[in-house]
């Protein structure tokens, strides 16, 4: 693995940046692996990386039907935060946030991780009660959280319209200063490069078409590049979780929906933080390139079509212009959708399945980017040891049978 540094940058500048080596190999699949991970999004690649880096398991293949990072990892709006309500979620997302804080150094890859602060707005008495409760819960869980008054919101983000005459006046906000953004592609590339360097085979253009089960135990997968045997298999395919589960003969509490986002033309720096509003339903940040990155809710009908309706975007733009009137004259450049896998309690499913040796990590829905390192970390532990880590044990599939749901609809109400 080429080590990136000021010296390698200078050296390659002299050769006009034409001699950088490939960052990972493109090997042909071997007939068998210890562990096969299905899906080379951030979560799958992080799983492979931590299997190799922390558990010494390097006979690993990551199979990707398209190109790595081409799913939701490359389509999301990169909001990172850990201010979830329940203890189980706070522990999992906060573990992930702590990993983010050292990840660029660990991977020797610039993830453009920026802890610029995430501000959630309060628009009514119910919001205020919910926000106050969540800030208190966060603090008890050692997650940084502050409750701001309307004036403090205005001071923190002056372009917000805090006038009492707006349709849904801003009554305050909650702020997680350690939250922020990262460069989505870089996360996939950084994990891919570091996993590859430790011997993991990343195989792109290799779609899994069947899961082989013998006597209740997984034995391998069928793919568009032939059969591949494996002792253990992890399903980490986001919007396609139910499709892969069906191949192994079970159902999930998951529905797949399009989630759209859009970006504006690049502007000079105008917004230094992430603004989210559950009440009027929109969120926005500004990328380092200068584009406003805007998102909101998913399209209600089930879909695998990777596109949504324009009316969904119109709704969120209406909300945005109400919150920040100066954005009314900004032109929008592109919109797109990803297919997100939504659980009824807005929390993921991470752990064992009814098939021995087959593990699943999915159901992150609209908010899994922030959890990329933590998600891979706990799944790697689960696959390596055969048992869930205490951090992911509460997120087992059987919570839907026992009834111990982890209802994060309030903390996850805006898709992010």
């Amino acid at each position, binding site marked *: 693995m080429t080590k990136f540094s000021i010296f390698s940058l200078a050296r390659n500048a002299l050769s006009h940046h034409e001699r950088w080596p490939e960052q990972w190999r493109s090997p042909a699949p071997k007939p068998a692996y210890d562990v096969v991970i299905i899906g080379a999004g951030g979560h799958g690649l992080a799983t492979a990386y931590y299997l190799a880096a922390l558990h010494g398991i390097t006979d690993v293949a990551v199979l990707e039907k398209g190109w790595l990072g081409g799913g939701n990892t490359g389509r999301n709006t990169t909001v990172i935060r850990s201010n979830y309500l329940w203890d189980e979620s706070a522990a999992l997302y906060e573990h992930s946030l702590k990993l983010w804080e050292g990840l660029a150094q660990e991977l020797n890859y610039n993830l453009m991780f920026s802890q610029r602060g995430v501000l959630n707005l309060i628009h009514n008495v119910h919001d205020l009660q919910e926000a106050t409760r969540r800030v208190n819960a966060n603090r008890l869980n050692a997650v940084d959280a502050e409750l701001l008054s309307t004036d403090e919101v205005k001071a923190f983000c002056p372009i917000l319209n805090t006038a009492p005459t707006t349709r849904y006046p801003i009554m305050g906000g909650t702020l997680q200063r350690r939250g922020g953004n990262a460069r989505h592609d870089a996360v996939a590339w950084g994990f891919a490069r570091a996993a590859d360097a430790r011997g993991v085979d990343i195989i792109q253009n290799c779609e899994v*078409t*069947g899961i082989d089960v013998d006597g209740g135990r997984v034995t391998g997968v069928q793919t568009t590049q032939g059969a591949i045997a494996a002792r253990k298999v992890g399903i980490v395919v986001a919007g*396609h979780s*139910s*499709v892969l589960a*069906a*191949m192994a003969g079970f*159902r*999930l*509490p*998951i*529905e*797949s929906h399009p989630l759209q986002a859009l970006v504006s033309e690049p502007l000079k720096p105008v917004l230094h933080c992430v603004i989210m509003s559950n009440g009027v339903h929109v969120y926005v940040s500004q990328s380092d390139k200068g584009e406003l990155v805007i998102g909101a809710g998913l399209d*209600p*009908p*089930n*879909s*695998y*079509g990777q596109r949504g*309706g*324009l*009316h969904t975007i119109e709704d969120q733009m209406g909300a945005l212009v109400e919150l920040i009137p100066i954005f009314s004259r900004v032109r929008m450049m592109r919109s797109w959708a990803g297919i997100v896998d939504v659980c*009824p309690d807005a929390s993921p499913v991470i752990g064992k399945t009814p098939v021995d040796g087959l593990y699943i990590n999915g159901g992150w829905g609209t908010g899994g980017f922030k959890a990329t390192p933590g998600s891979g970390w706990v799944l790697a532990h689960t696959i390596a040891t055969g048992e869930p880590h205490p951090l992911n044990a509460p997120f087992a599939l059987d919570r*839907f*049978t*026992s*009834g111990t749901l982890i209802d994060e609809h309030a903390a996850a109400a805006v898709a992010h």
Partner: protein
Amino acid sequence: MLWIDCPWCGPRPETEYRYGGEAHIARPDPAATDDAGWADYLFMRTNTKGVHAERWMHRDGCRRWFNVLRHTVSNEVLAVYPMGTPRPETPRLPGDGAEGA
């Protein structure tokens, strides 16, 4: 935006409707159902990639519920039929979930 044919009001845009999720999920007999059966009824979904039977309600119109067969990749609406009637036969299409696509 989807364009859906309400059986009573005719073709109307998606924004007039409320989506009601997977159709034909029968409530089990409470006396004869264990926890796994309830989990299956309440939470587990087929989430088909392909032709999906689903419920819609014409919220801004006649406010009546009905069923729709829609392809979840192409969004093509293949049939509209009353609640309580069985799912109609449809031609197999490329990308139908039955192929494991």
